[in-house]
Structures are given as structure tokens and as C-alpha cells.
């Protein structure tokens, strides 16, 4: 036997190797997978991992974005540019179409569309016959996510049953499904927000500009800074302020808030991320604060 030279992987290399392994398991086990790509920082990492997993070949899956119609234009432009650069197929399915079909019915015009994404996602899964959706969710984001398997089984209604998950042992992932069922695969489950930023720095990944500090009109609502946009105009009683902000997470305009920050470079964002006292979703997501189980509830209904 050869003598083992004691070389080990850094934590980032290890996380990357694990994520590549998971993506390749999806490619090896699933007949028709898709990679969810929103243009956000986690999905930017996922694209780099897909490159490392499958180049010089093409990705064995298309990219797909479920567009709520309430996304920041910078993010949509970035999404299209990235897909073009990679030369991979981008599928966009839009909530507007589901509304036109009558499968999404809003309570009122300006209701957050975030949770309704599940409907359009499930429709797209059915339309294309996807048996696996690869997503960039991380277990450190939220307590229901902390419980979720890396290969998470969904029934034909897209439902997650947290009390009856498939056991997942070693790195022997089971992505088998029957017709109509699907798997949600989460290659970066074990990454934290800090890992994501460290990876973005190391790999010199490009991001939508709104991740970096910029001045933007906002209204203070409790601890949150609500961006003033066409979709979320200030009320007459609101005081609009111009504040230097950046987004820690990028989602629907109506439910994603920026944080006050002057971090205009990845180095500065890394320093802030290492010392922040507020969680990523706590500072930024209104939809998680409605109840203790809101994420769990959404996931049970098919949310990714």
C-alpha cells in the first residue's frame, strides 16, 4: 500500500465536493431533472457547482425560474445574462400565466406572491414531467429547512411530509420516484450564509448589483427597511428616507427587505456577515415572520 500523504480539503473545498457529488447523483439517478435558478446568490453558487460537476459537457438539466413578476429588474437582467453566458437552456414560467389560467387567485392586488410560487412550480413540474428540482436552499436559513433531507421526497401534490421523511444515511442518496412524484435536491444544504459569501469571493462569482451597498428610498417598518418601489409605494403617513442598503437575500419585491449597510465589496460583505447579529431571513423576509411554522407550512404545500 502506498503511504498516505496527510492532505485534507479545506472546509470550502469539502462543501464544494459534497455539492458536486449531490448534483451528479441527481444526474445519475433522475431521468428529467431541472435546476432552479433565480439569479440570487445561492443559485449563482449552484451554477458554479454545476460547471464543476459537468464541464466540459453540457449540464444534464435545463435551468428554470419561477417568475413572480415582482422581481427586481437587476436580478432578471442578471439571470438572463448568466444563462446566455453559460449557453444553457433557461425555462421561465410566470405567476402571471397561472393567474390568467385561474390557478392562482390573489386575495388582493398587492398580496405577496411569494407563497403562490408553489402553484406555478408544480404546474411547470407537471408540464415538463420533471422528476427532480435542484434548489439552492440551505439548512441554516430556517428551522424547517434544518430538518430537511438533501434529497427530499414530494408526493404527486408536491407535498413535503416532515414527519415521514426518507431516512438518509451516509452519502447514499435515494432519489427514486414513481410517476408524478418528485425529489427536491439541495446540494448546498450544509452551507451557511458565510460559506456562500466565502465561495463567491474565492470563485470570483458575479452577482446582481443590488447585493452591494447602494442608496435607495425606504420606509422603516419596525425593524425592517421596506424599499419604496412602484409595487410597494409609500403610504401618505410614511416617511421616505434615502438609506445606504444592500440585500442579503433577493426575492419577491413585496416581501424582501434590504439591510442598512455600506458594504460595497465582497470583502466588506464578508466582514459584515461574520459579525452580524441578525439572521439572514430575520432581517429580510416578511413572509417568515407571520408564524413560527410559516416555512414548514409553505413547504408542505409544495414550496421548494
Amino acid at each position: 500500500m502506498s503511504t498516505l500523504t496527510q492532505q485534507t480539503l479545506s472546509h470550502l473545498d469539502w462543501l464544494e465536493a459534497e455539492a458536486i457529488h449531490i448534483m451528479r447523483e441527481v444526474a445519475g439517478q433522475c431521468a428529467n431533472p431541472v435546476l432552479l435558478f433565480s439569479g440570487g446568490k445561492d443559485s449563482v453558487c449552484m451554477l458554479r457547482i454545476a460547471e464543476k460537476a459537468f464541464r466540459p459537457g453540457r449540464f444534464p438539466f435545463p435551468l428554470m425560474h419561477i417568475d413572480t413578476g415582482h422581481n427586481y429588474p437587476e436580478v432578471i437582467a442578471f439571470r438572463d445574462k448568466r444563462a446566455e453566458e453559460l449557453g444553457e437552456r433557461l425555462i421561465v414560467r410566470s405567476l402571471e400565466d397561472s393567474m390568467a389560467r385561474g390557478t392562482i387567485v390573489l386575495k388582493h392586488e398587492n398580496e405577496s406572491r411569494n407563497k403562490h410560487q408553489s402553484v406555478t412550480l408544480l404546474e411547470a413540474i407537471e408540464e415538463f414531467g420533471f422528476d427532480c428540482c435542484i434548489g439552492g436552499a440551505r439548512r441554516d436559513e430556517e428551522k424547517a429547512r434544518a430538518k430537511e433531507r438533501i434529497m427530499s421526497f414530494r408526493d404527486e401534490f408536491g407535498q413535503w411530509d416532515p414527519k415521514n421523511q426518507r431516512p438518509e444515511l451516509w452519502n447514499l442518496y435515494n432519489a427514486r420516484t414513481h410517476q408524478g412524484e418528485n425529489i427536491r435536491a439541495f446540494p448546498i444544504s450544509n452551507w451557511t450564509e458565510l460559506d456562500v459569501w466565502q465561495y463567491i469571493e474565492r470563485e470570483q462569482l458575479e452577482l446582481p448589483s443590488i447585493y452591494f451597498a447602494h442608496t435607495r428610498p425606504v420606509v422603516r417598518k419596525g425593524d425592517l427597511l421596506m424599499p419604496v418601489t412602484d409595487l410597494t409605494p409609500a403610504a401618505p403617513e410614511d416617511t421616505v428616507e434615502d438609506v445606504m442598503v444592500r440585500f442579503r437575500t433577493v426575492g419577491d419585491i413585496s416581501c424582501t427587505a434590504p439591510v442598512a449597510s455600506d458594504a460595497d465589496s465582497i470583502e466588506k460583505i464578508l466582514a459584515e456577515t461574520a459579525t452580524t447579529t441578525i439572521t439572514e431571513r430575520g432581517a429580510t423576509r416578511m413572509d417568515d415572520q407571520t408564524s413560527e411554522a410559516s416555512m414548514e407550512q409553505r413547504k408542505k404545500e409544495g414550496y421548494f
Partner: protein
Amino acid sequence: MSALEHLPDTDNGLLRFLTCGSVDDGKSTLIGRLLFDSKTILADTMNAIEKTSAKRGLTAVDLSLLTDGLQAEREQGITIDVAYRYFTTGTRKYIIADAPGHEQYTRNMVTAASTANLAIILVDARKGMLTQTRRHSTLAKMVGIPHLVVAINKMDLVDYDQATFESIRNDYLAFAEKVGIKDVRFIPMSALNGDMVVERGDRMGWYEGPTMMQILESAPAAHTEKPEDFRFPVQYVCRPRDSANPELHDYRGFMGRVESGEIAVGDAVTTLPSGQSSRVKAIEIGGQRIDKAIHEQSVTLLFEDEIDTSRGDMIVKSAEAPAALKQIDADVCWLSETALSPARTYLLRHTTREVKAKVARIEYRLDVNTLDTGDAATLEMNDIARVSLKLAQPIFADPYQRNRATGAFIIIDESTNNTVGAGMIA
């Protein structure tokens, strides 16, 4: 230890550990303490837990709310499924698998243990060793966790008494000898007050060993203890067939992860089951070439000759080939509510290879409390047994105690596609 105030400048890799033990032994408090002292519980999370604690009429903050993430868990106040938690100390990143203590969730403890490199087994100093202490220790040993730490917790409730600590330690050592556990350390601890978790505290001057955090910081990283034989299960074959790019026309890359050992350009390799041999022409990650790949690295291998290899095959160094087995003896933990049926055919997944399998014989069922063995005609959920299995095609396996990656398998019920069993080759 101070909070993480700057980015890590040294990287001791990643350590995966699990916390286990009986119900109410203070697992959640310990995890809370580790997360709190490493600044991982952030202010808004703490606020949420405080609010919920108050809503329930508790006077103190209930740290178990931090780890019990499911509605059903919070309703019942117990941990049902494994939760994964993360913290970093500035030199190392940690993944904690928080395993349930209840007996009926033993399968979830095995799940958590399968990826861990260190186990913290909590013991309530007032109660000493309990059934679950023995059960979880036996399982940890069986799953091959190299390092065990027995944390004798709630020392504050026994007046920090050294004799109590030593008596439990002696009980445990007698048990450990019987099970064959070798690497075990003991820490007296009060997770509630923080003694010997991160800070030493000033009430147990009689204990001179390391704190919990010192043990975690110095334990070998998850990926440093691997067998030397090169094992590369093929996950996916890359054939770009890009007619626009003639360079890629003949490209055939075998993609997978180095599960053990290492591989360098020029090494002689054999692919199994075909037995064809060649040499490594190139090693790539994402199209970039590297000279050598080490264990747990995900890479693409290119060979000098065209050899027939597809997903499910195993690439090894020509001189280090494992046995091809069509009949295996294994320790099996049954995970499903539906009992094992010796009449049925199951699917067995070993590395990236799937084969049909049938039970030839249940050699014995193990009572993990007493370690006694007995006969069994079937296996119920949470049973652990030595089983002899017949396979439709060979697998290329090593004994589990020598190689966790090539010694482990799962059993899948094809009617439900559920993972119903976990196996470790004897």
C-alpha cells in the same frame, strides 16, 4: 472563547458530530450553549425563542425551541427527526446532527450517526447510565464513529461532586470494554451554567482534562481518517459529443468522488466489474486539470485507453482491488414501519451501484440494551440484526469497519421507493 469577530485565517477543515443520549439529558442546552458561545444564535432568533418561552409560561428561555424545528416537535416538546446545525469557531467549521433521544426514533439516531466523525453522548449525572446511553453507545460503535465523548452533564445538580463523575465513568468503562469501544473521553459538565463546555468555570478544579470545545477543536477532521485503498464509484459518464468542438469529440470522462485513497496522473487503474485496466491520463474538476485527487474530492478521470465503464462501476488501483461479493453478511438496522419480509426481493444500493437482494438468513437479532443475541424470523422498525443477503449481481465492497464508504449500503423497497434498511458489511 470570544465570538467570531473576524474571518477565519486558519482552516482546520470540517468536523461533523452528533449529540445523543437519553431524553432530557440536556442535549438541547448543550447545543444552545455551543451555538451561543460561538455567536451562532443571533439576536432575532433569540428574541423569537424568548417570546415563545414566555407565551408558554416558562420563566427561563427554553433552548430546545432552537433545535426543534417542526410543528409536531414543538407541540409535543420532543425531537422527532434529526436537525442539522452549524457553527464556526474561526478555525474550524462544525456540522452538528442533533439526534432524537426517544427509543422509537432510533433509526433517526442511526441516520445522524452515519455521517458523524465524533459523538457526544450525554449522561445525566443524577441518573448515571441509562438504557439509551448503552443503546446509543452501541450504535455509535457499530456505525464506526471513531471518537466518543461522554459528557456527564448536570454536574450542578450533584454539587459538582467528583466521586459521582468517577463512579459513572467507571460504569461506562466497564460497559465500553464489553462493546469494544476504545477511544472514549469523559467530561464533567454543566451545559446550563456553561462549566466545561467552552469555559472551564471555577467549580470543578478537580478535573484537569480538556473542555468540550477543546476536544472538538483538536479532534481529527472528518476527512483525515480514511483507508488508503483507492475507491472511485462512477457516478456519471461525461461524453460531450460536441460536433462543433473537435477536441471534445472523443472526450470520455468518468465522474465521481474519491471515496478513499488518492489517485494521480499516470496511476494504473482497473474498472470493475469488467476488469479492464488502463492508466490515468488526466484528472479534472470542471474542465480544469489537476495532478492528483485526494479522498472526498469530486473529480473527473480520463484514461489512456478506451475502457468500458458506466455508472455503478468501481474504479480502483490495479493492485488494490476489493472483493466482488454476491453473498454478504451485514449488520442491518431496519428503518421502516413495515417489517422486513424474507420472501421479498429488495433493491440494495451500494455506492452508486444498485442490485436486487434477498434475505438468505437472519443470523441473529441484537438486543442493543443487553447486547444479547437471539433468533428472529423478521425485522421490525429499529431492530438491528446480523443478516445474510443474496445479491443478483456482485458488489465491490470492503468490510464497513475498514471503509465506511464501500462497506455501507441502503435497502430500498421498490413498491414505495422508501429507504427501509441500512446495512454495514461485516
